[in-house]
């Protein structure tokens, strides 16, 4: 057994301030926010020296989901989910497409890369300001067709009041079970494709839940006493577009780094075997860089769940159509002084982000352990 040297102690001591700071400012603060979300801290005296806080359990959470006056928050939450999904599809799709183009070694590759990545260096406030002007209802993008003699578009990118893919929040419970059932079946099919012996378990669970909801879904309690429609607000398309413009360069850089890491020999061998360029990417390159896709999903979902600056700059903080829980949290906390409710919204955002991040960190920690 080795004795602990003086230097080892020094190393530990050097780390101590950072451990303490992160311990308090990250873990302690998350705990504190959780505690705040269980109180009724807010109102007129909220900012006094010793504000009154009473424990109210999960009242704030319950109110956000089923409270009569919280439909704004529920739409924000739906917006955030659509926003995440479209951003993931858009930024990964466009970024992967450009990366494949650049992987075919055009001349001036460096120039192209610089152009596609520059939006990434900008502040969301700058992007938001520029895109607000670009998407102005009767100017910018909408008048571009007139330069080739066509009729202008008249889509209201940021102020449309249309909402599509609507569902009724009253039935959120049966809706949630349906989603769970579909996810289980998809995982089951995916495992089946990989010939895993666990496939049957997932499929059966998914189908059973699906049938149960289909048969007895009507008996599930209603979340609300009356109908409340939520859907994909078309006014968020402008925000999605601007975010894709800014972040597709990022996914491009990720994928390009991945493609560069694949040996040229492998590609040459595939081509000799008669693989087309398309098949090379479809069956060899993209599966090989799956970890990069996972990283991109983690980073982009994290960004879309905390998105605040861009929406603030594009449509202002209190535009109902393009609302987002992150903005709602800011308004609730710092404009309405309703700290407890703001904390509950923040915890929900944190919880959604943690669903992606914690498994990711655990698996990367395990990988490190195996290598060590």
């Amino acid at each position, binding site marked *: 057994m080795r004795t602990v040297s*003086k*230097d080892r102690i*020094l*190393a530990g001591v*050097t*780390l101590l301030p*950072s*451990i303490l*700071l*992160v311990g308090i*400012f*990250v873990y302690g*603060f*998350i705990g504190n926010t959780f505690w*705040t979300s269980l109180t009724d801290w807010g109102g007129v005296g909220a900012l006094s020296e010793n504000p009154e806080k009473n424990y109210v359990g999960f009242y704030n959470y319950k109110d956000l989901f089923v409270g009569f006056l919280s439909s704004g928050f529920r739409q924000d939450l739906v917006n955030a989910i659509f926003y995440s999904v479209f951003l993931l599809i858009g930024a990964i799709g466009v970024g992967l497409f450009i990366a494949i*183009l650049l992987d075919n070694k*055009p001349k001036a590759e460096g120039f192209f890369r*610089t152009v*596609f*990545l*520059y*939006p*990434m260096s*900008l*502040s969301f*406030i*700058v992007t938001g*300001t*520029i895109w607000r*002007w670009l998407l*102005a209802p*009767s*100017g910018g993008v909408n*008048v*571009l067709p007139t330069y080739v003699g066509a009729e*202008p578009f008249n889509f209201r990118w940021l102020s449309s009041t249309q909402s599509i893919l609507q569902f009724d929040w009253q039935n959120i419970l049966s809706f949630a079970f349906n989603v769970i059932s579909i996810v289980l079946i998809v995982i089951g099919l995916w495992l089946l494709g990989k010939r895993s012996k666990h496939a049957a378990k997932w499929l059966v669970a998914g189908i059973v839940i699906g049938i149960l909801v289909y048969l007895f879904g009507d008996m599930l309690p209603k979340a609300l006493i009356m109908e409340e429609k939520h859907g994909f607000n078309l006014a968020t398309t402008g925000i999605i577009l601007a975010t894709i*413009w800014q972040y597709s360069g990022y996914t491009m*850089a990720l994928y390009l*780094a991945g493609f560069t890491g694949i040996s040229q020999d492998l590609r040459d061998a595939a081509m000799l075997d008669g693989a087309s360029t398309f098949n090379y990417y479809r069956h060899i390159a993209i599966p090989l860089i799956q970890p990069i896709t996972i*990283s*991109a999903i983690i*980073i982009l979902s*994290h960004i879309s769940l*905390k998105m*605040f*600056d861009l929406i603030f*700059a594009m449509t202002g903080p209190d535009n109902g159509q393009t609302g987002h829980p*992150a903005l709602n*949290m*800011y308004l609730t906390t*710092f404009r309405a002084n309703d700290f407890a409710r*703001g904390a509950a919204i*923040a915890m929900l*955002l944190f919880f959604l*982000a943690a669903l992606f*991040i914690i498994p990711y*960190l655990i698996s990367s*920690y395990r990988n490190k*352990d195996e290598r*060590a």
Partner: protein
Amino acid sequence: MKKKTVKPSRVALYVVLLLLVVVYLLPAYLTLITALKDPSEISLPHSWDFPAVLNWKSFSEAFALLKPNIINSFILTICATAISIALGSINGYVFSKWKFKGSELIFTLLLFGMFIPYQVILIPLFQTLRAMNLYGGLPGLILAHVVYGLPITSLIFRNFYMQIPDSLVESATLDGAGFFSIYTQVIFPLSIPGFVVTSIWQSTQIWNEFLWGITLTRHSANPITVGLAQLAGGQAVSWNLPMAGSILAALPVLFIYIVMGRYFIRGLLAGSVKG
């Protein structure tokens, strides 16, 4: 080398790439020409037309309005970047060269701080800064950036130092060098690229940050992002000023990006591709 004939697929590649270049640059073009127009010349249907007369005054007007914010942001960025790269470097040194039982676990727990939506720590942060009398001014904002910058700076330096062979450290140990002298004599002199990558990453992040800027500072200490949001948010302002302001706010980071692009990308990848 034999002369190649131009294949149609090559032509298609360049056509698609150039179209994409146009799409990516259009917002920048519109920003620039709008900033250069006289307010009376700005109209929605003609927003893409090149200005008849170049009006450079927008930049000086926007600069006059944003000057206090720009100064704040420079102070904030320089101070917070300097402190967080110093801490990140020493942490990365410990995490890569002085691993102990549990250090990987601590490192993973530290990284977690990088991935949280900052809304979840905003209320206690606001309260703590108020209690410490740091709310409203730049020192509080610097503290926030330093603390929440610890995960990413430690990560970049750790991955960077992992590439330095352990044998260098071991031979220095045999020569009788201790914890700090190994750092100053072996590690630090090899760290320049690591410092460049980390400081570029941190300074662009800090310069561009908005959420803490708007919630943790009073008007006099507002950084550039908050100043720009206020300039652009007013309804009456004609569009040349917000556009000129956007260019002013983007210039420092764009400059860094264009001059040091290689290092910028390394910082970008460091946060997602693990070494």
